[in-house]
């Protein structure tokens, strides 16, 4: 399937709505988890080159905390929860009640890694269950993996399936940020949903825009 030519702005709007519903639930879950107000931006849905994808979270060499999981079931794809180190530090400090915690200081404690992974699990779980309720599609997330590394190295894991059929990727990108901390867009956390090419037809069909 060559999806590059078939996607219209209506399709992109539908995908945006998916990002909106999913990320809103995830942001609520995060807010509950941290007892802290979390805001999100209106999702962006873009068809970008792989190279451009690298710029969506500050460049391929930027060190981030990344939680990655695969989606299985009626649709397949990759999901990432990407946090800049500073933001991840603030979240984990709050979660494990350790103000001195720092992802930059190796070795990172098991407790912090486990907390980060669980946070990723809860957030992506709420994103995907909202998506599943909305579309009535069966969606099963795999157990998430965690990596603290360069953004390019992390995100390219999610491009493997796509890269077999296309040189572009459709990315549903929602940024989240803490209301009380003024930061530039480059240091926001992101949810990236990258459906596999074959899954777009399924999504559009159930939402009546095929």
């Amino acid at each position, binding site marked *: 399937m060559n999806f590059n030519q078939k996607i219209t702005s209506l399709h992109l709007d539908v995908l945006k709505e998916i990002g909106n519903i999913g990320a809103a639930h995830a942001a609520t879950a995060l807010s509950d988890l941290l007892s802290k107000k979390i805001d999100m931006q209106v999702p962006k849905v873009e068809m970008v080159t792989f190279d451009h994808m690298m710029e969506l979270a500050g460049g391929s060499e930027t060190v981030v905390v990344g939680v990655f999981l695969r989606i299985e079931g009626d649709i397949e794809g990759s999901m990432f929860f990407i946090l800049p180190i500073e933001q991840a530090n603030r979240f984990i400090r709050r979660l494990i009640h350790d103000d001195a915690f720092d992802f930059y200081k190796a070795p990172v404690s098991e407790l912090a890694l486990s907390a980060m992974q669980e946070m990723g699990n809860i957030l992506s779980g709420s994103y995907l269950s909202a998506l599943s309720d909305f579309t009535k599609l069966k969606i099963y997330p795999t157990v998430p*993996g965690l990596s603290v590394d360069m953004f390019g190295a*992390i995100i390219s894991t999610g491009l493997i399936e796509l890269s077999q059929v296309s040189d572009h990727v459709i990315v549903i990108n929602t940024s989240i940020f803490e209301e009380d901390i003024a930061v530039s867009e480059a240091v926001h956390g992101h949810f990236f949903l990258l459906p596999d090419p074959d899954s777009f037809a399924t999504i559009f069909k159930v939402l009546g825009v095929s």
Partner: protein
Amino acid sequence: MIVSNTIVKVGIAQMDVVKAPNTIRTSGLGSCVGVVIYDETKQIAGLIHVMLPDSSLGKVDATNVAKFADTGIKALLDLLKAEGVQTFKLKAKIAGGAQMFQFTSDKSSMRIGPRNVEAVKNELNKYKIPLISEDTGGNSGRTIEFNPATSKLNIRTVNRGVSEI
């Protein structure tokens, strides 16, 4: 003559060729493999950022050749030949092919790093290009930079520091 050294940047699924004193670099290699093919005496080097092992995986025609190990290395050799290098003088260094996330999933795309490395080595073998050194596997992302003047490949990682091969 004023010599200004520039760093040529190669993006994901792209390739380029550089001459000393310039250097060539690609960043954020995860499961992808960075392949440097160089001529020591002419101080010319080509770098390709390979994403996938085999163009037969490509389900659509007319895709970017630099994405795959097989078509990409062939295309890079063509670029180098256009610069006047002779294939028998070429040598190679490679880095990347990590597995960024540990999964129990048996889906083959999750093991793409090792498969990329294997495919790259097969291609180099095919063209009888000796592989001088490599830094592959593991679970760290890598940024690499090659200097054709010294034939050294600098490798930077987040968790394991900097090394040179």
